[in-house]
């Protein structure tokens, strides 16, 4: 077990749900209420000074439905730590934009695409889609082709013709002919 994971477990053992190591990458899954404290601890005491990325996962029919993923690293890139937080649909996540300023836009993107809200975020509004767009398009139940919307003088959306798509490449196919993009016939 890595030194970092051990230290997190020592200090916040009761909030750690599980830990995992896969090909040298270390992941700690923690409870939502301890997120901010753990992040602060990682930055101040474990030298994980850089927040590389924030993303979110929609597991659709799993409970809790969503999962936040935080990627931390030291400035010299020598150590990495991934922190995951399971989030149910009606739960909010504490913002960490006061610990890392870069989290501001990352959290806005998560809110925009997935609809997860962040408590005490200084400016929680959409970042990619426009204000007033009614959906969160990276949720699993949202169709790839999109849904029709219209905000006069701002923007509109339509439904893309899928023509039998989406077209998917099979990377594990043994020859190039069968690996070519084929229609999934899901439209």
């Amino acid at each position, binding site marked *: 077990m890595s030194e970092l994971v051990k230290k997190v477990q020592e200090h916040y053992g009761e909030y750690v749900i599980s830990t995992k190591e896969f090909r040298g990458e270390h992941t700690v899954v923690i409870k939502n209420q301890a997120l901010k404290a753990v992040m602060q601890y990682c930055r101040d005491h474990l030298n994980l000074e850089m927040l590389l990325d924030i993303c979110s996962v929609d597991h659709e029919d799993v409970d809790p439905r969503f999962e936040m993923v935080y990627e931390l690293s030291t400035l010299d890139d020598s150590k990495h730590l991934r922190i995951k937080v399971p989030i149910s649909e009606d739960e909010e996540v504490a913002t960490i934009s006061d610990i890392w300023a870069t989290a501001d836009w990352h959290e806005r993107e998560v809110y925009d695409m997935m609809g997860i809200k962040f408590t005490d975020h200084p400016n929680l509004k959409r970042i*990619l*889609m*426009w204000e007033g767009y009614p*959906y969160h*398009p990276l949720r699993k139940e*949202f*169709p*790839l*082709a*999109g*849904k029709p919307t219209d905000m006069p*003088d*701002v*923007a*509109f*959306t*339509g439904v*893309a*013709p*899928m*023509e039998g*798509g*989406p077209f998917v490449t099979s990377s594990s196919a043994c020859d190039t002919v069968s690996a070519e993009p084929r229609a999934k016939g899901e439209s």
Partner: protein
Amino acid sequence: MISKSSSPVISPNVGPQIPTGDSGDVDLTDYVYDSKVEGNIIFTRVDAAINWMRKNSLWPMPMGLACCAIELMATASSRFDISRFGAEVMRFSPRQADVMIVSGTVTYKMALAVKRVWDQMPEPKWCIAMGACASSGGMYRSYATLQGIDRLIPVDVYISGCPPRPEALIDGLMKLQDKIGSEKSLMGLKADPEEKAVKGLEISR
């Protein structure tokens, strides 16, 4: 076409004289070039002249939205040199542009901005949809991408490719030049009752 400096009327006395020799044969070496007249007069139809001027000085509005814009810039550079076709004057103001080259993915967020820029361009104006995305949405069959700029503005020339090579853009430009050359720029206003109704123009015959 007649330039401003010369008189539109050709006097028979001023025109080129063909001198005859003693034998009565025409000696073409004595054929006099009359610079006063010949340098300034071209006989043509107004339509042809207007179209000729329009198609050889197309000022593009570079609507560069994605990677196609890189090829658009390459087309303007010395290797491909779009100025050979009189279209090197890229104007970043729509009010000074003739042809909008929509080069790149048009997202729904950008779509009305493109439309607005198009509306600000003065007539006559043309549109080139450069590349797969601008023509049809390309590989972006998704909630975020307009499925072809022709859903918002009329397109004259579609160029395939992802992105198209600069040669393809130049070929598209030449196709557009051919199209402009065959337009009824003045005659159309006179003859087409529908056109008259659309533009509110009244031209007496």
